[in-house]
């Protein structure tokens, strides 16, 4: 597997591709150059062929001259050397003649060649005859024969001259054609070489760009990531080369970073949520505290004064006044002390009792209050200032206009895991719209109510939610206007109770 991967990467590696591109371009250039040189070579060969015919004719002429020279020399001296030369040159000349045309062809040059060949054959016959006559000492014959031979020699020479001229004429024309075509070829070759060079450069540029582009993309993306932007598109793996491998790894790395960051963010969000809740709780507490800010000064001063009042009443034997002032003092003390923390259930119930007592004194015992609290549940911890505002509400909004007939009932029972608290009255009652408005916290107590201690039901609901991290703990029920209202609170107290 690993070997396969290595071979694959070798196959696609930048080095291989770059080398392949270079080699291909080189081959391309070499092929083109080879082609051009081949054309030039062909042209030069052709020029060579053109003038080789003239050279051949000159050879023929030279050979003929030598032959005639030796014949003359032999006739002149009858030397054996001359005879020997004669036979040799005759042989040479015959060989050269073999190269000449001997067919009847529709071509002036070829027919001239044929004529030269035939005349030369006649000439050679004649020279042989002359030489034989000379050897046989037939003076008259060899002289007349020599004359004929000389005449033929002259004819042949003139024909060779004519042939040479003709050849040269056609060859000159050919040479002109070849020369001009070579000139054209030279220009074209220049153009081709430039084109080939340009094509080579373009090919190499394209190949290099195709290799470098993913690298540039990678570097740009890496730069962006380094600048903190993780939201970059996934880089495509164009080719399985080194850059491809790095790109793939980079993509994987980016994915991992993203996942990691998402996890981090989630946990941070959770933490933030928790913190926010804490803050909210604190805010609500602060709000509640603020509501009592004015009352807080008064209570401290008040309950001190009240204590002083109670003691004064005791000294003057006004017992009922003394008890009243004492309860007042207790109520305000509880208010001041318990706003920040949760409280014991019995403390809450006591605060309600004190509140009712105070109101009864105030309203001359008009309020009919009834409480039904299970035994042994006084130690449960619940948020402070929960019950008193509900009872206060029942008094303020429920039975305020019918104090004589109005009744308030508070029952606290433990039902399984929960603590069921109900505060009901038989007073004014509420429409569903009013209930909805109260539950949504819109009907906040503005605090200027003369009878209010300043804590609205909305605040109670919010604090319950914050304390128990649960909604729907407080329910308001009413059958309509004039039919009374009951507020139910369900508090999960199992754990606190055990603690």
């Amino acid at each position, binding site marked *: 597997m690993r070997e396969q991967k290595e071979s694959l990467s070798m196959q696609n590696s930048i080095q291989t591709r770059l080398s392949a591109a270079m080699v291909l371009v080189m081959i*391309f250039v070499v092929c*083109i150059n080879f*082609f051009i040189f081949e*054309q030039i070579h*062909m*042209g030069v060969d*052709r020029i060579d*062929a*053109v003038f080789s*015919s003239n050279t051949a004719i000159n050879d023929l002429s030279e050979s003929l001259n030598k032959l005639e020279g030796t014949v003359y020399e032999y006739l002149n001296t009858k030397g054996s050397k001359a005879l020997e030369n004669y036979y040799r040159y005759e042989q040479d000349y015959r060989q050269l003649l073999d190269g000449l*045309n001997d*067919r*009847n*062809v*529709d*071509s*002036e*040059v*070829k*027919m001239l060649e*044929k*004529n030269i060949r*035939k*005349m030369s*054959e*006649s*000439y050679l016959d004649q020279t042989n005859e002359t030489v034989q006559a000379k050897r046989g000492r037939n003076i008259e014959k060899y002289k007349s024969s020599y004359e004929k031979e000389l*005449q*033929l020699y002259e*004819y042949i020479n*003139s*024909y060779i001259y004519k042939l040479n001229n*003709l*050849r040269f004429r*056609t060859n000159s024309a*050919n040479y002109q*054609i*070849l020369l001009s*075509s070579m000139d*054209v*070829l030279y220009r*074209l070759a220049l153009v*081709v070489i430039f*084109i*080939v060079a340009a*094509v080579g450069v*373009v*090919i190499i540029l*394209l190949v290099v*760009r*195709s290799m470098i582009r993913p690298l540039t993309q990678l570097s740009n993306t890496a730069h962006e990531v380094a600048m903190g932007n993780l939201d970059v598109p996934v880089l495509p793996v*164009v080719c399985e080369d080194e850059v491809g491998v790095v790109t793939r790894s980079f993509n994987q790395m980016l994915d991992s970073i993203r996942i990691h960051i998402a996890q981090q963010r989630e946990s941070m969000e959770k933490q933030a949520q928790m913190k926010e809740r804490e803050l909210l709780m604190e805010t609500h507490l602060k709000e509640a505290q603020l509501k009592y800010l004015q009352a807080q000064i008064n209570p401290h001063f008040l309950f001190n004064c009240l204590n002083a009042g109670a003691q004064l009443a005791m000294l003057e034997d006004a017992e009922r006044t003394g008890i009243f002032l004492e309860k007042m003092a207790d109520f305000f003390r509880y208010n001041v002390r318990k706003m920040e923390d949760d409280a014991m259930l019995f403390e809450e119930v006591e605060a309600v009792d004190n509140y009712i007592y105070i109101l009864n004194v105030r309203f001359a015992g008009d309020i009919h209050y009834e409480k039904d609290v299970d035994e042994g549940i006084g130690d449960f911890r619940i948020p402070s200032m929960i019950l008193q505002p509900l009872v206060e509400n029942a008094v303020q909004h429920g039975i305020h206009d019918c104090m004589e007939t109005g009744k308030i009932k508070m029952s606290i029972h433990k039902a399984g895991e929960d603590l069921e608290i109900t505060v009901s009255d038989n007073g004014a009652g509420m429409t569903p719209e009013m209930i909805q408005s109260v539950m949504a916290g819109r009907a906040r107590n503005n605090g200027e109510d003369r009878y209010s201690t300043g804590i609205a039901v909305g605040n109670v609901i919010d604090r319950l939610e914050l304390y128990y991290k649960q909604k729907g703990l407080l329910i308001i029920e009413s059958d309509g206007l004039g039919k009374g209202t009951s507020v139910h609170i369900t508090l999960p107290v199992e754990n606190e109770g055990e603690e």
Partner: protein
Amino acid sequence: MKKSTLTVFFVLAGCMLFLSGIWIYFQKTLDQVDLGEGEGAAGYEKHYLMISGEENTLMWDSIYESASEAARDADAYVELIAPQRESTYTKADYLRIGIASKVDGIILEADGSAEEQELIQEAMDQNIPVVTVLTDDSSSARISFVGLNSYQLGNAYTEQILGLLKEHETTQVLLLSNSQSKTQETNLVYYQIKKELEEKKQGYQSVNISEYSIDNSSDFDTEEFVRDIFVNGNTLPDVLVCMDEVVTECVYQALIDYNQVGNVDVVGFYYSDVILDAISKGIISSAIALDMEEIGRYSINALEEYSSLGHTSSYYSVGQNVITRKNVGTYRTGANQ
């Protein structure tokens, strides 16, 4: 990547196309180069040699053309040798060359010289048949003569001369030939004309016939001699009978140059463009022309017949035409063609 591959492909294809263009151009250029090796030239079985009397005349051109055509049909090649200015070779030399070249037959305008007769004999000895054209040498060993015999030619000239004779006066008639076309036959033509004129002229007419053979063995002699006749105005004849194409043209030019148009009547020979012009302008009265096409064709026929049968007719008569102002148009187109 695909786009770039396509681009590279197209560029390469363009290069290939360009190179093929160069290659085709170069091949075509090389094909233009004829090395004279006779590539693609037709081959023939026989080789005939035609030795013309004059260089580059229209007359000989048409004889050679028709001979070539006839020869092609008979699978033979006709080589034309004309005496050239630059060489001193005579007809005899060409005959020798032909014999030494072992050609298959010779067509020759005979001059009747003894040397020529000998050479014709030598050729016949070496199985090279010789045909004479235009002018004959009946005493030679030639196998056949193609042309018009002296009797017919003499009659043709006589007819033209008769129309030009003066009334009640002696008419000076000068027969002009050049030495190359001057043969025994020419003499016969001369005698024929003389005889015919004597016979056919009216009683009140008298004719004084003289003849002159121009020695044109060296260059430009024909023209010089013709001018001499005109310069010595006293001896200017009334009728000039030219028995040669070149002589006719020289006479025509001299007539104009020496302002003798109308004073001298000319009977020409053959029709070149110049002669046709002269006839149409009325400067030359008429011209006698042989059917050169027939001469060429018949001479080849004679050679072919001889080579296949061993003998042939010793005389091929060709048609003759008299060109006058009336029919000059038909010849003009013929000559132009």
